[in-house]
């Protein structure tokens, strides 16, 4: 149980399966104190409560009923996660019974661009993008600690291609791949099934609040995912938590402020500057790659290693590369619409990224796409 008096929030996590309600006396006392001290609104956070029996539910209900009677002006917000499959069915009755109580599925608002990237056309491009990046990345994975026989977690696995590829090349004991997109997971599951792969387990999950136990994996990867999440430090904390002491956390992120090209270098740079402005409006940071070493160090990791994945039109099929950049233009249009951004921004992004595409396809041109890969080892005793 975690109590945050400033935020007027009590969080319950793990398991609540008592024999009798009396075993929850301490929790009940904490909740009552929080309700007495709260002004305006009290939040009960159940998003990481994986198991709860009926006895515990009745105790929570008893507390809510008490709070509604004792503090009629206090609003009570119950936070649940769509990752916990029973939570909505269980808690919605409280919202119906008590006028001051609301139930909020917190992760519905957590990934604002999810529907954009789940578009079928975009899925095809993502596959191409994944292939391009992996062709460069595969040479680095050994240096970052990946070895055969490891237990591997891939958080933010998307379409699951990375899990499939490393499964073929590195023969891990098993891979647990987590994503918050059901559409992506369906693709991933179908793909793995079609290949007869048995040791990749795909899970619907929230990278910021994983249900995976502590110290469970030898190698934890999170590729091109921290950049689309507005709480990178929280995510890093989770990656470290599930990594075994002595295991390694491996991350990759783009550095779009460093994209350049020839000809029309100024246009290309202007386009990506505007791209970054737009993405930051919706909580994404496609330049967070420059912070890779800092993120790893702040998370408490040691033996930090980093490498530039330098994708350019001389070491990558230009047609594939161009397709990926073209898809970003469409992606930006969808993001701009969802963020109600100034249309000028989108126009300038379009001009810059089209110049980038031209540079990629030009026989005499140069165009890059820099990604920074980094990893760190979890110490035997990580300070949390």
């Amino acid at each position, binding site marked *: 149980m975690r109590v945050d008096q400033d935020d007027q929030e009590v969080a319950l996590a*793990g398991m*609540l399966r*008592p024999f009798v309600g009396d075993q929850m006396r301490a929790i009940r006392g904490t909740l009552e104190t929080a309700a007495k001290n709260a002004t305006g609104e009290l939040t009960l956070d159940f998003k990481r409560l994986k*198991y709860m029996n009926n006895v515990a539910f*009745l105790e929570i209900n008893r507390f809510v*009923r008490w709070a509604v009677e004792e503090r009629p002006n206090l609003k009570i917000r119950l936070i649940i996660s769509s990752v916990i*499959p029973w939570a909505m069915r269980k808690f919605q009755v409280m919202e119906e019974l008590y006028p001051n109580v609301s139930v909020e599925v917190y992760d519905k608002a957590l990934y604002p661009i999810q529907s954009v990237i789940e578009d079928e056309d975009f899925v095809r491009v993502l596959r191409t993008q994944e292939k391009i990046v992996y062709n460069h990345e595969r040479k680095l994975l050994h240096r970052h600690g990946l070895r055969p026989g490891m237990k591997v977690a891939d958080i933010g696995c998307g379409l699951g291609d990375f899990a499939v590829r490393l499964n073929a090349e590195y023969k891990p004991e098993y891979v647990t791949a987590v994503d918050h997109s059901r559409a992506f997971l369906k693709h991933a599951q179908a793909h793995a099934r079609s290949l007869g792969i048995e040791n990749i387990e795909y899970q619907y999950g929230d990278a910021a609040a994983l*249900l995976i136990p*502590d110290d469970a994996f030898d190698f934890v990867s999170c590729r091109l995912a921290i950049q689309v999440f507005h709480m990178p430090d929280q995510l890093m904390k989770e990656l470290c938590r599930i990594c075994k002491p002595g295991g390694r956390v491996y991350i990759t992120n783009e550095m779009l402020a460093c994209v350049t090209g020839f000809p029309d270098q100024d246009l290309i740079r202007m386009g990506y500057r505007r791209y970054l402005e737009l993405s930051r409006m919706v909580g994404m940071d496609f330049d967070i790659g420059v912070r890779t070493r800092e993120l790893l160090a702040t998370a408490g990791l040691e033996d930090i290693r980093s490498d530039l994945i330098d994708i350019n039109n001389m070491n990558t099929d230009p047609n594939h590369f161009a397709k990926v950049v073209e898809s970003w233009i469409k992606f930006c249009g969808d993001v701009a619409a969802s963020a109600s951004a100034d249309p000028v921004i989108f126009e300038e992004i379009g001009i810059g990224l089209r110049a980038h595409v031209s540079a990629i396809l030009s026989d005499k041109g140069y165009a890059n796409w820099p990604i920074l890969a980094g990893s760190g080892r979890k110490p035997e005793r990580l300070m949390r």
Partner: protein
Amino acid sequence: MATSNGSAMHSTRHPDSRYSASCLLSQTNPEALMSVSKPTDVAPTLRPPPVMAPSGMIISANFSVTGFSKRWSHCHQMANFLARYASANEDDPERYATLLSTFFNELLEAIYRNHEPSGDIIITFQRNHGRIIVTAEVPASSENLAFYKHAVQLLNQPDPMAWYREQLEHDVPDNDVTTLGLLELAVVYGSTLSLTEPKNGTSLTLNIELPFTEVDENECFNLP
């Protein structure tokens, strides 16, 4: 497999004959009854071969009442074991197992509180296309029988949800807590509950049917 405390859990063949399972109820290291921060599961288990049978037996567990009733935490452990095994071949085993564990746990807690002091408990888990069928054979006295009959009666009343809500609005007497747990299987998860009384009069069989494809609003499961 017999264990030192007399508990046993026998594997039953899965429709695919490569499947089998056994479980040991730990006598020495019970988990805490409540935990609010510690890990509740081990790391993911390897999956059995990906064969999906649309219907048939998934697992049957046979264990002694004496071993099971020694510790409350056995309900949680057994629920998680059964749920994990039954979920092994699903597309998202973790999600499936979490939901099934909730379901099994309520059933096992009801059994824990209402059984005869000796005999065997047999739980079978079957799938019939989109539905899940659980039967639980429980050694029972006439008093136990009365409890389960009452629960079945409540579940089969015209509007069990109204009764459930009424209980939440008032203090539930301790005796009704277990009934409410079983009732929850119906009102929250849409299952049906019926009771069979074998002729010998020393046990009863609970039959629970769950429309599983409809339970998870997120449509994460792809039961055939």
